[in-house]
């Protein structure tokens, strides 16, 4: 039992539950940063291993914040070690879209331009934008995970949309 009374992540089934609750959004978060699957998987794995190592001290409610903090640090470490600027790979973010009943041909061209524009966004803006649009996280939630203010998140989001508009015109 965790000191504050909640179930302990040291229990296998609790750990599994926490894993399944956060794996996709954690992976997405790192993936949005670098567009590299292997790197994202590496970082995510290390984050969960650290979580296990600290399982007695982290309650399930605090797990996501813990994972994100560790993931961010791990990511920075890896990037600085390899000493090369990770260029966000063009075309690496492909989205499978839910089919809609509207069959408008003009949509396809718009979508392609959009994909391309998203890939070209600065990392800070892209991460916030995608965490909001794809993972459905609110600005407050993103702020907590990135350890910045909610206003800062909103500013990044605003800039992301402006930038997307600009890029869309130029593609």
């Amino acid at each position: 039992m965790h000191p504050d009374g909640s179930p302990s992540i040291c229990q296998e089934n609790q750990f599994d539950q926490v894993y399944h609750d956060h794996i996709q959004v954690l992976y997405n978060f790192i993936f949005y940063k670098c567009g590299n699957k292997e790197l994202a998987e590496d970082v995510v794995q290390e984050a969960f291993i650290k979580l296990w190592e600290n399982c007695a001290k982290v309650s399930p409610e605090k797990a996501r914040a813990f994972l994100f903090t560790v993931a961010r640090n791990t990511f920075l470490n890896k990037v600085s070690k390899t000493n090369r600027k990770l260029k966000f790979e063009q075309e690496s973010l492909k989205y499978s879209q839910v089919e809609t009943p509207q069959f408008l041909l003009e949509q396809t061209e718009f979508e392609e331009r959009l994909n391309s524009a998203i890939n070209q966004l600065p990392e800070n803006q892209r991460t916030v934008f995608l965490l909001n649009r794809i993972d459905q996280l609110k600005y407050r939630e993103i702020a907590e995970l990135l350890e910045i203010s909610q206003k800062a998140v909103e500013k990044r989001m605003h800039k992301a949309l402006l930038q997307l508009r600009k890029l869309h015109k130029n593609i």
Partner: protein
Amino acid sequence: MDDFLKYDDTFLARWVAGELSAEELKQFEQHPDFNYYIQLIEKTGEFQIEKVDSTRLLRQIKSKRSIKTAAPVKKLNRRYILMATATLLILIIGYQVFFKTQTTNIETSFGVQIAETLPDGSSFNLNAHSKLQYDKDGFIDDRILTLEGEAFFEVKEGRSFIVKTKSGTVEVLGTSFTVYSKDGVLKVACKTGKVKVTNQKGDNTILSPGERVFSIDGKMKNKENIQISSIASWKNGTSLFVSEPLWLVAKSLEDHYGIKIQLNSNQNEELFSGGFVHNDLDEALRSVFAPMGLKYSEKQKGNYIIE
């Protein structure tokens, strides 16, 4: 003219979150790029990312984890302990419990119907003995509901509106329609607009007004034309059926009146067209079974046998 988007550096973020005042919204609607942003938000609202292979990853994590924790205790060095402590401190400072999405659960018991509005302005009528779930805060961004039973939806024009059931998914953009899902049977009828129905097997069809489709145990039938006035008639006190299997009609009787019906005849699959009122059980039973040449009798209180 100065572009206000250059000066208000959170405007677009607040717009996406639905937090603009009515005046701000009006101002934005005049902006030359307004339509682009609408399209942008619609498109990205539909995007999904490739799911990570979580099972494989978990296995890898567990194998690496065992190796680490199997290491002798003396390997735990000070630096590691310090980092763990620092991490803990960060967590202690100001984190609330979060990430619990608020699921709104709406359930009707026998004979009860409910009509309500959704956060986006769409509305639904929930028929008797049915259950509806959705995330109240997230609904504005993601119009998804889970349904067991029957409901009629009037969907405001906007982003994708999705109703998930055990037997399939119904997706629309601005329309009105009914969804019935119980015991492996999915029945969807379109009243206005356009509706796309996909069953668990991935078979799908698109319904126009007056069209209705059944998917039973994973098999999607051909869609049929039915009278539009019969769609969701139950909202107004009479349940109407157009060429539907008798056992389905019997189930509806059970849901409205809270009775149990045992169909002993060999006519369970016979198609019934007609209806029953909600305020008179005997009249209701008569109007369903008499035209089929069947008699009903009450064996115990609330239990009926049809033969």
